[in-house]
């Protein structure tokens, strides 16, 4: 993690975090919470009214400056017909992980969660959070070498 000028917008110096991650997920239709059939068709979230899923990995944490921060690090569009099982390794974040301030240094508790927006063919647009999340601590010092 480094402390650089946030070149994507505000011109103050902010912490910029670098995270690499693996994602393994099975996006199932957890409507009832119970899966009584061990059948590909019933388990998949892609029923007749699901056009696509917009998946995103967000980092949530607290800093001295802000009680709650959420930054989307990575996203992916999964269309009907794509494999609902994800197994991604060694991914780098798609978007720059800038904090609003210097709150990443020494921050022990950054929670990464995978969520998705269900886009129907017509109807309600729910946001679902996947179960399971990972906590990532950031080190106490800045890096001076390029890590990407």
């Amino acid at each position, binding site marked *: 993690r480094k402390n650089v000028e946030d070149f994507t917008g505000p011109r103050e110096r902010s912490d910029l975090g670098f995270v690499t991650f693996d994602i393994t997920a099975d996006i199932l239709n957890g409507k009832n919470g119970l899966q009584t059939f061990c059948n590909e068709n019933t388990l998949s979230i892609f029923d007749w009214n699901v056009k696509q899923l917009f998946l*995103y990995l967000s980092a949530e944490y607290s800093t001295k400056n802000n*009680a*709650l921060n959420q*930054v989307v690090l990575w996203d992916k*569009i999964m269309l009907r017909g794509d494999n609902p099982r994800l197994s991604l390794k060694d991914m780098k974040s798609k978007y720059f992980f800038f904090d609003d301030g210097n709150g990443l240094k020494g921050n022990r508790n950054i929670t990464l969660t995978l969520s998705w*927006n269900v886009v129907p063919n017509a*109807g*309600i*647009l729910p*946001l679902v959070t996947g179960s399971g999340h990972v906590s990532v601590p950031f080190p106490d010092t800045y890096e001076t070498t390029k890590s990407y």
Partner: protein
Amino acid sequence: RRCAGSAGPERGSRGGIAMDLFGDLRRMNKRQLYYQVLNFAMIVSSALMIWKGLIVVTGSESPIVVVLSGSMEPAFHRGDLLFLTNFHDDPIRAGEIVVFKVEGRDIPIVHRVIKVHEKGNGNIKFLTKGDNNEVDDRGLYKEGQNWLEKKDVVGRARGFLPYVGMVTIIMNDYPKFKYALLAVMGAYVLLKRES
């Protein structure tokens, strides 16, 4: 109740339907005309009441919006209809689809929230980006503006219907179509008879 005009055997004479319409119009007396106008006014008032009701119930100044650009494809396309709510206590969270207006501009933009920074006192600032865009929306905001705030939000997208909003876009792009539609509606309402 006696109808003032006849609905019967005069049809079929020369000129057909157009002549009949004009005939009806001439035969309508003042009372009937007022009645028709009042009927029309009631329909318009009811529609307005329903719209205002929706504004109150959803908390959004514009509870139904039409998607104007392709920046949220493949989820939403130009012409799709979005249903919004804007409850005061609903927090703004990453991943939500919000409709916002940039200060000084009239056009609402439908994009997704990708960054949220909320202070303990409830003060929120957030950043948005269209799914189909490479970069975030800072280029769309006002000069020097880096974040959006709650006051810029028109509503959060809760539901959607595809294609239905195309009618509004066509009426906007082809005003002649809009006038033609209004003329037809007006003629229908004024000449419609309850016999």
